[in-house]
């Protein structure tokens, strides 16, 4: 037969909880309990408030920059819950728009504020918490998730390497090398791609000619699926299946979670300059908090009193977190040598002791050069 079909593929899309809060009960079977949904709604509410306060901190000059998570809480929340229910044993390689997945798995809420306030200690992950420092360059960290998955397999431990990244990261070669490694070496990995439609100011249509981002994993032998990223039920179901597929079959899954960045890329950006307000308004209606609340209200699990309670709780938690993050003692200049090596070599010991990297040192105004007093 001279001509045959060598390969065909399809990408399935899952939505279980629609934007009106209506649930597909058949698909929802064995996913989230009522208790889970209440928990996730509360967590998303706290995260949303955290986001708003972080934004205000930046605007008032108390933080360098901040990338809002607003509108994208559902995917990280649902995936985070799956990992939390497994005892937070899986390794997470994050970028910067999945705060909730990290909070749910042991990262103190102070850490992320501290990081964006400009302090390396924000990325000092507590012992026993399986989360890597946030990767701010785009797409460099899925390779680390692959290394974590590879190590789990090497050590025969029941853990999965999970990478969170955005649609823009799929334009980076690193992400494709990571996807290829995970497929070719049969590694327990999950690639969670939050397609929020915009890579800073560049729309998805400029990033790729693919119909979906999910299909990018097909070429690397991944199980590929697209979900409504604002739907905690769909994200939970698909992510849980992906974790189990990774653990049981050592087959990676590429999940494209369709969502929308309701805020700017970061506080250094103004999205009004490049996207239509009508588009933002349309997506605001699909906000995961709105639909989850509708669902809970329809089931009689939520009311205005409980809403007032969670809003008060969110304020109390976030206010305490901000206080803690801002209260940490500033690092000393000499500290910056300390984390260069496990054991400091002679030359760095000398630099640390003298506070002189060059002849001048870190505070030239207090030094003398060739015996002459120097003036600041």
């Amino acid at each position: 037969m001279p001509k045959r079909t060598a390969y065909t593929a399809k990408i399935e899309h899952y939505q279980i909880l629609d934007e009106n809060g209506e649930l597909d009960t058949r698909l929802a079977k064995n996913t989230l309990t009522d208790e889970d949904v209440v928990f996730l709604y509360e967590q998303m509410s706290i995260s949303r408030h955290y986001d708003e306060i972080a934004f205000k901190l930046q605007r008032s000059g108390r933080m360098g920059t901040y990338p809002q998570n607003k509108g994208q809480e559902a995917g990280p929340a649902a995936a985070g819950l799956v990992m939390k229910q497994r005892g937070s044993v899986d390794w997470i390689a994050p970028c910067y728009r999945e705060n909730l997945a990290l909070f749910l798995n042991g990262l103190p809420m102070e850490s992320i504020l501290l990081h964006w306030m400009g302090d390396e200690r924000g990325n000092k992950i507590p012992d026993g918490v399986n989360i890597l420092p946030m990767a701010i360059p785009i797409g460099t960290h899925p390779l680390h998730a692959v290394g974590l998955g590879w190590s789990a397999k090497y050590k025969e431990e029941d853990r999965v390497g999970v990478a969170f990244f955005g649609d823009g990261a799929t334009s980076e070669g690193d992400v494709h090398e990571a996807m290829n490694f995970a497929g070719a070496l049969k590694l327990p990995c999950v690639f969670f791609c939050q397609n929020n439609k915009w890579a800073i100011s560049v729309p998805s249509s400029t990033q790729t000619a693919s119909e979906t981002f999910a299909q990018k994993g097909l070429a690397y032998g991944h199980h590929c699926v697209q979900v409504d990223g604002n739907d905690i039920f769909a994200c939970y179901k698909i992510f849980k299946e992906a974790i189990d597929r990774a653990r049981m079959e050592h087959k990676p899954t590429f999940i494209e979670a369709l969502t929308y960045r309701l805020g700017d890329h970061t506080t250094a950006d103004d999205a009004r300059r490049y996207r239509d307000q009508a588009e933002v308004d349309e997506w605001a209606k699909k906000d995961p908090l709105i639909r989850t609340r509708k669902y809970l209200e329809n089931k009689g699990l939520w009311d205005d009193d409980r809403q007032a309670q969670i809003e008060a709780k969110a304020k109390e938690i976030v206010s305490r977190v901000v206080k803690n993050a801002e209260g940490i003692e500033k690092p000393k200049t000499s500290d910056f040598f300390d984390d260069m090596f496990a054991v400091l070599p002679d030359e760095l010991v000398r630099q640390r002791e003298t506070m002189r990297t060059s002849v001048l040192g870190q505070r030239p105004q207090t030094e003398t050069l060739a015996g002459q007093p120097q003036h600041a």
Partner: protein
Amino acid sequence: MPTTLEHADLDAMIADLPSREGDRVIQLREAIREAMAHEMRQDKRVFLMGEEVAYYNGAYKVSEGMLDEFGPERIIDTPISENGFAGLAVGAAMYGLRPIIEFMSWSFSLVAADQILNNVPKMLYMSGGQWGCPVVFRGNDGPGGQLGSTHSWSVEALYSNVPGLKIAIPSNPYDAKGLMHTAIRDDDPVFYLESERILADKGHVPEEAYAIPFGRANRTREGEDCTLVSFGRPVHFCEQAADMLAEEGITCDVLDMRTVRPLDSEAIFDSLKKTNRIVVVDQSWPFGGVASEVISQVCEKAFDHLDHQPLRVNSDDVPTPYAKNLEQAFLPNADKIIAAVKKTLG
């Protein structure tokens, strides 16, 4: 306060090293292999990964026989994807493993630059001291002989600019083994640069395991008139030059630095105090290289001991030529070194 290693500790480690003299003669590539295999037997966290390291026994046969001993779980062939396995190693190191990553050539490490320069050396720092990256990256460095410009990098000049790395460049089988033991046991990332041109060089290598501390030069000969500083393959050019100069009654101190990060500056200053003249031989390019760093330090810290301006012998400031005669003309050699030494002597 960070952990520190006193100079005295390094002296004690040097004093404990086994003799360099003996008749257990093996190739430099075998010396590297012995150290890797020894460490892998001792420590299950150590594995070797790279292109063709397993079934093909390595492009330069450094890993020959290791697949048979350790199996495909620990000697791993990869896709042709340097950035892929360099990044994988970062994750594996953070999980508690000790990867040895072979770049078939350090020239190919350039496509992994973000992982090896922007992630590996900074991870400890950026995680507030949480996670180091104890990875050994190793492979062929320097012109291998008519491999053309893209395959002939000497990466030490470029990479040594980055804080947080250790860079070992052995010139002989004895050091190759001892430096590899140290590299694998080190809790920080190590770039281990092997010149293809000396992989078949033979010399006595003790059977036992021994770790040569980083940051301590080896003085391969003593002389009075000029200090020759080098590392890796060009150490041999220095030795040839010193032999020829000795016939004319000019004697040289030859320092084989063994590591350029950390750099044993004290050994250089000590020698300079005796000879008052220095020539640095470095087969990477001249602009902003290791030789220029050595000379900067000499000028900053030992200027009063100089009787002549410091000189350097680098490769020329052009891409590595493909033509044989041009490549030879491009590289440092004994004649160039002799000319430099004589110039310092006026």
